Each structure stands twice: as C-alpha cells, then as structure tokens.
C-alpha cells in the first residue's frame, strides 16, 4: 500500500509546500516499509528533485490543457493514480491548492480526511491544529483510505539525497465546469503566506505615511509585510496584508509585531510563527505574552535603529 503525494506546482516549478508534503508522505511510507509516489499535474520541470525528499517515483501528467489549476480534474487524476498505485494514504499540503482538491477527493473516495496535520500519524491517529492554533486535536481516521493535508511550515523536512524517477502518467481526465480567466498577482513581492520572515505593523504606527520604515526593515530582511485588521479596514494598508482570524493565517519562521496590541483574533492568525518579536510602547500589551523577544519602546525610535543593525549584520 504505497503513499501518494499531490505535489503542486506554480508556473512550472514545484512549490515549497509540495516538498513539505513529499517529505511527510515519504516518512510515512518509510515507517510502513513502502514507497512514496508523487503526482504532478500540468507542465513542470525539476520533478526528480522530489527524490531528495524521499519520493521514489513521480507520475507526471503534463498535458498543457491542465496548466490552469482545475480542482475537479485534478481530483479525478489523483483518484486514478491512487488506484493504479494501490495507495491507501494520500497527502496534500493544507494550502490554497490542497484546500481546493483534498476535500473533493475525500468525498470521491469516501475516505476520512484530516487537514492541518502538525505531526506524522501514529497509526490511524493524526494530530492537527484546532481553534485557530490555540489547541491540538488527535483525530482517528476510520476508513481504509486516509487523506492528510499537512499544515505548511509545521513538520520538519527530511532530505535523503535521492533522485526520483519520473514517469508519464495518463488517465481519463474528467470534465469540469470551471474556466480560469485571469491570474492577478498582487505584486511581484514575496507572497505573505510563503514568506519565512514577516514584518507586521498595527495601529500603533499612527498613519500610512509611517510605513516606510516597515518596508525598509522588510527589505533588509527579505521579508513580506503584513498588518493588523484595523489598519487594513481604515485603508492604511491593502487588504491582502491583513493577518489574523479573519485575514490570512501565516506560519513564518520569524514574525515582527510592531505597534500591534496582540488581540486574541490577531494572535489566532500568527500564533504558528516559530519566533515572535514584539515592539510596543506598552509593557502591558498582551502580545508580549506570546512573544519570544520583546522591546518595550517607541517604534519610531526602535525600527530605524533595527534597520541599521540588520544592515550591519548583512554587510
């Protein structure tokens, strides 16, 4: 019973999350003494690299008509691949693509699914994040086939130095009622949900004209920028920067919260960050309770100094 991994690609390149899902699936396969097989849909190159994360074989359905992401078609393709490989465990990343395809596949195969997995399974029991990162649940899958969607940046990747064999795959491609009309990227900047470092600021910055230093810091660190909800609501920053319970949930390695009080709804979207740095004038700001490092001080004095200190480090 092999393990099947859906490896998502974007503009012909495998995503960071695809490698995480691959490594997760390969570790399960290894624990069960079986192989991990990845499925890639649409034009993409560099697929052998999945071998470095433990994938033995890649099934590639490279039909150019599939370059536009189509969950209905991909669901059918993965189901066909699972049948061919006799796979009983199917792995996704719990990202934008995974959220579009995995639930469909679960219903199609009548297979129990756990999303937001934060650890390798223990038998049929999988640990997942619940209550917006405020707790974990252990969920048992009761069906023979299981589907697991891994929470990005929460399970360590294991490299093996291997290379995967790539095989062309074909199957009946199901019809779909969806047409992709256009893809609009907000900017050429780093995407917030994929960034390793995020510099975020809140109402403490007083006005949109003061974001220059936040952008400077982000630039020095190679970070993406984010903001609290009121800042997006008043229009100081674009909506796609809003993080928290009602905006994007992010899990970077390093999160700077500058002039953000740390309301529970804000924390719900950022509490998965590995290291949190808080800069706030108010020593009583709730964010310090969630912080790893803190400076009680005025952002307008601290941040410019921080920019200089980072410059010095990078020099």
């Amino acid at each position, binding site marked *: 019973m092999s393990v099947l991994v859906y490896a998502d690609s974007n503009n012909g390149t495998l995503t960071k999350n695809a490698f995480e899902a691959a490594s997760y699936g390969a570790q399960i396969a290894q624990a069960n003494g079986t192989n991990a097989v990845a499925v890639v849909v649409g034009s993409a190159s560099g697929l052998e690299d999945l071998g470095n994360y433990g994938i033995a074989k890649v099934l590639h359905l490279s039909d150019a008509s599939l370059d536009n992401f189509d969950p209905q078609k991909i669901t059918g393709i993965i189901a066909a691949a699972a049948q061919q490989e006799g796979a009983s465990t199917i792995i996704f990343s719990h990202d934008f693509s995974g959220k579009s395809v995995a639930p469909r596949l*679960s219903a199609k195969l009548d297979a129990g699914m756990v999303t937001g997995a934060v650890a390798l399974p223990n038998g049929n029991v999988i640990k997942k994040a619940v209550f917006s990162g405020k707790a974990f649940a252990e969920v048992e899958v009761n069906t023979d086939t299981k589907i697991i969607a891994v929470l990005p940046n929460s399970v360590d990747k294991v490299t093996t130095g291997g290379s995967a064999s790539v095989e062309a795959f074909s199957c009946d491609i199901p019809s779909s009622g969806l047409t992709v009309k256009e893809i609009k990227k907000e900017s050429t900047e780093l995407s917030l949900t994929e960034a390793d470092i995020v510099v975020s600021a809140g109402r403490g910055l007083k006005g949109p004209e003061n974001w220059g230093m936040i952008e400077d810091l982000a630039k020095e660190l190679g970070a993406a920028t984010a903001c609290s909800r009121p800042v997006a609501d008043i229009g100081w920053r674009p909506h796609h920067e809003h993080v928290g319970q009602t905006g994007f949930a992010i899990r970077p390695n390093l999160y700077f919260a500058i002039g953000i009080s740390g309301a529970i709804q804000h924390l719900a979207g950022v509490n998965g960050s590995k290291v949190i740095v808080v800069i706030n004038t108010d020593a009583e700001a709730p964010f310090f309770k969630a*912080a790893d490092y803190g400076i009680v001080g005025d952002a307008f004095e601290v941040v410019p100094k921080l920019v200089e200190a980072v410059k010095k480090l990078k020099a």
Partner: protein
Amino acid sequence: MKILVCISKAPDTTAKIAFTDGDTKFDENGVQFIVNPYDEWYALVRGLELKEANGGSVTVINVGRADSDPVIRKALAIGADDAVRIDADTTDALYVAKQIANYAKENAYDMVLCGKETIDYNGSQVAGMIAELMNAPYVSLASKLDMNGNTATIERDIEGGVEVVETATPFVLSSAKGMAEARIPNMRGIMAARTKPLNVVAASEANNATTIKGFSLPPAKSGCKYVDADNVEELVNLLHNEAKAI
C-alpha cells in the same frame, strides 16, 4: 436565484479554549456561541446581496442539534428567508457534507455558499466535499462573486494574488474576506426572525469517517526575553545567533 448558505455554530473568537472529560470534549462552560464568522459575514451577506439584486431566496442550513437554533435565528435576523436544521451530532466533516449535499440535491439550489473554514476545527473541508457529492464545480477561498444570468465570475485567493474563474450554476464556494461586509441585524430583522420557518429534518444515513480522540493545549511559551530599547543591536544578535532566524 435559489441560494443555500451553510452556517456552523462556533465559539466566540475570544472564548477560553479548555477541555473536559479527560481532554476529550471542548469545555462549553461560559462560552458564547456565534455564527461562524466566515459563514455569516461573507457567505450569508453575499447571498443576501445577490438575492436583493436578482430576486430569489436565501435558505440557511445547519447540521446540528437544537442548541444551534439561536445562531440559526441570528442568520434569519440578518435576512435569510428560511432555515433548515438537519438534526444530528456533528463530529466529522464528510458526515456533515453528505447531509447537506443530499438536501441540496433534492432541492435544486443555484449555488451553495460556505465559509472558508470554521474557527473551531479549522477543517476547510465541508464545502469541497459538498461540491464533489453534487458533482458541481468548487471554488475555494473566494473573495468576490458576481452573477450574470447563470454565469458566476469568482475571484479566489491563491499564493500572492487572486485567480479569476468563471462557472455556471449550480456551483459551491467557500468564502473568505472581501466577499461582503458584515451586517448587523436590526430590530425589525430580529423580530421577523422569530416567525421565519426553521424546518428540522431527520438526518440521512451516513458513517463518521473520522473520530476525535482527544485534545491538548500547546506548551506555554518559555517567556519573553526583553531587550532594552537603546540596545537594538542585541536583538539582532539574538535573532541571528540564538534563534537562528535571520
């Protein structure tokens, strides 16, 4: 336009997260329950806007027991025409999706609108499952929905941007920020909600594909290390050498 909006009952965003019965049950003691924010603010309100512009009806559906009725009434107060509650305990997404899909298929809706996830179990599962069970297109994390006759133009969140897709009714989507602005029910709405139909129907036969075995809380942070505001270089030093984060 016949619109079905799926609503879930969720603990208030500020609720204390604790567990009872040997950490196998969420402790509801003192917890205020609300309509799951994505369902209410985005899916329901966009559904109402489309009805107001094009005519038709908005039905809200919930799978749950009688303790869901207050949040269902809230959705009616905001403006839904009627409500359906499928009487069942909910522990598994696929079970819930089957209940809703069966109902939706029997009643021929033009669209089924859901929230992007519930704020308790954070599954992001039910909407996509309903779509597959209905053999209908599914658009996840939609931030914009416009209708032109039977054609829907939908924007959905993707990595670093949005994708614009087109599909015909019937379809299923999950809603994220941007779809609509939250509405606060007014007195008239609250009064009207009391007499709007809330039909309780029996659940159809289905298995639970998953079971929750237990809960745990994340380990407490070891505490914040404070750096003096005059010594910002020390912060950079710690982030580089200790946290290895930059």
